[in-house]
């Protein structure tokens, strides 16, 4: 009996199939299962199937392309069709990131290219960070490297981050009219530090407008997270 079972396993392997409880899955099924678990926002299943995929020797790059990228595309389409919420797009992005983390050790030597780098923060005096967090997460889901400075960020901290991180974009958020003036302070200090021309500056938040962005010398204004990310993508192109 033992011999017969091991024989079956060997045959399955040869056929590029694996034993997965409760049923045997082939390579395509595993890739689909990872994709579908991402689409269904099921973190545990996506992790389980990703580990299984590595166990049976599926190429990590193929997992990224066929499962993660395809899954994210499906989620994106569902969002556009108002079937999914933006929050679900964010969760899917996080699951995608977790899958990539599992794959990372196997991806050694293969460069995962980022779209660009963004330094982001809510300006000094303002503790409201939810809008900023949404933008940061959506930027990450769009393959940006994000350096999140948090909330209540002093202008000096933005300047230091620009010098240190050399980002493509500085993104600032403010909910309050009393704090939005800090955005101009940041831009003035970037100029004084001779780094203003090295970055694009985008602002957003309930307190600010396109007109205000222009008046303080920002390069862009994002009325919402989706628009903010779109503008950043356009700049990096």
């Amino acid at each position, binding site marked *: 009996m033992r011999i017969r079972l091991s024989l079956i396993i060997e045959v399955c392997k040869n056929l590029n199939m694996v034993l997965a409880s409760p049923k045997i899955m082939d390579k395509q099924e595993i890739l689909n299962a990872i994709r579908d678990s991402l689409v269904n926002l099921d973190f545990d299943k996506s992790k389980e199937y990703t580990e299984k995929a590595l166990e049976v020797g599926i190429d990590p790059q193929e997992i990224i392309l066929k499962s993660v990228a395809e899954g994210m595309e499906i989620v994106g389409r569902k969002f556009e069709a108002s079937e999914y919420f933006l929050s679900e797009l964010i969760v899917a992005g996080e699951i995608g990131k977790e899958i990539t983390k599992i794959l990372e050790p196997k991806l050694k030597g293969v460069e995962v290219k980022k779209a660009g780098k963004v330094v982001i923060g809510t300006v000094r005096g303002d503790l409201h960070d*939810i809008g900023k967090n949404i933008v940061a997460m959506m930027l990450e889901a769009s393959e940006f490297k994000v350096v999140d400075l948090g909330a209540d960020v002093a202008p000096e901290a933005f300047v230091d981050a620009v010098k240190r991180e050399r980002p493509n974009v500085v993104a600032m958020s403010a909910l309050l009219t009393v704090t939005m003036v800090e955005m101009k302070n940041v831009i003035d200090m970037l100029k004084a530090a001779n780094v203003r021309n090295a970055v694009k500056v985008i602002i957003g938040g309930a307190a600010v407008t396109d007109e205000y962005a222009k008046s303080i010398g920002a390069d862009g204004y994002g009325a919402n997270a989706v628009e903010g990310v779109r503008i950043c993508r356009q700049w990096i192109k």
Partner: protein
Amino acid sequence: MKFDSVKLGPDQLSFGFASHPLRYGLNLEVGKGFVVPEIKYFPRVGRDLKEEYKAITDGVLKRAVGLGVERLQLETELTYVEMEVPGLAGEIVRLQKDLMERYAQEYGVSLGFRVTVADVRDFGKPKHDEQAFSKMLQTFEDVSSNGADVLSIESEGGKELFNYAVIRQDLLGIVCSLGYLAAYDMKKLWKEIVHIAKNKNILAGGDSACAFGNTSMRLAGGLRDNVIAHSLAAIVRGMSASRSLVAYEEGAVGPGKDCAYENVIIKAITGYPMSMEGKTSACAHSSLVGNVIAAACDLWSNEQVENIKLFGGYGPEVFLEVLHYDTKIMNGAIKSGRSLLFREILIDSDKYLDPQAYVLSPEVACLVADTIVRERDTLSRTISAGAKVANLLADEKELVLGKGERRFLEAARGRLDDIYGAPQRKVEEALKEYERKVEKLKVRDYLEV
């Protein structure tokens, strides 16, 4: 005081009437058969703050007298700017109250003055930013000594976790935030506020779950927005009532703060008068509940308007006029014995437009209130309130819900049922995990009361 029964039923939960009317300030009564306008404003950026508040107060009171307003409440909502300079908040309040006293004396207008202190704590700092907490309490003391009649706050305990959870539609995180962390923080904070108010013989007005319920409302947005499920925003609204109720259990007596849309549920439970805001707060933010929320108000507010010049005067003066006419209709309906009819019109105009409006209609609010008082503690109340809202929404045939909303509701019902099975254990286990994920979350600091 533990609330274990509902004070007002659906037919009694109506605008202008509270079980426990209040009299305070300069001869102002609320909840006694009429609705009082509550005007709220904020200064222009870069102006001298004292001059700006003086001009706002004078402008508003002049307009009130010109319109024949008989009763009015002013609300000054402080920000970190006014609280940065020691003594400044008290000076502003004194200056405003002096003007109010003059108008009350000269024109016989009845006036009340609410002061809301900003929650300036950074919860990521050790012991939840003790220095900021002391500053908040000192500001409460200062404004109480200088003429505030009602004390309020939009406290933010649990917000660091809530922000993480709500954008992921994570109901367990929301329960941990509202039903556990916020409850601990509210208890600690409101003990102090009530103590200050009692010492100064003024009113501890109540807290607003603005940072939770209104954040969700803003994220849900309009009918065509889909950042988060509108059903989630409605569930959060129901849950936030159990959180805000803690202030009243600690001794607050109202009038509850305007932006606490959960006040409909709180009023049903406590019978205390409540301020509310809706269509006339469109100057501050949009909502899908502009009329229905007026159905049970005792004060009617504009949320907040900047002191900018409009064609019809400065912002606060213009919005006072709008509030005045809003309340005139309601008070006219009461006087002529048609208040319930008018209330039905307000409810019907919004109720089935969106889950957020549905949950705030008095009939539904009373069902949620009843669910809350049946539970013993804030955590169980929070979960049960959420589950009740989810069940009511899912079963309501007249609500038109899209595929995404239905899918979310189905999942939410299962999730909340699961949490309800072992709330304490699930929350405590989950918080350990959230502490790893949410940088600023320090659970231990909440528990050290």
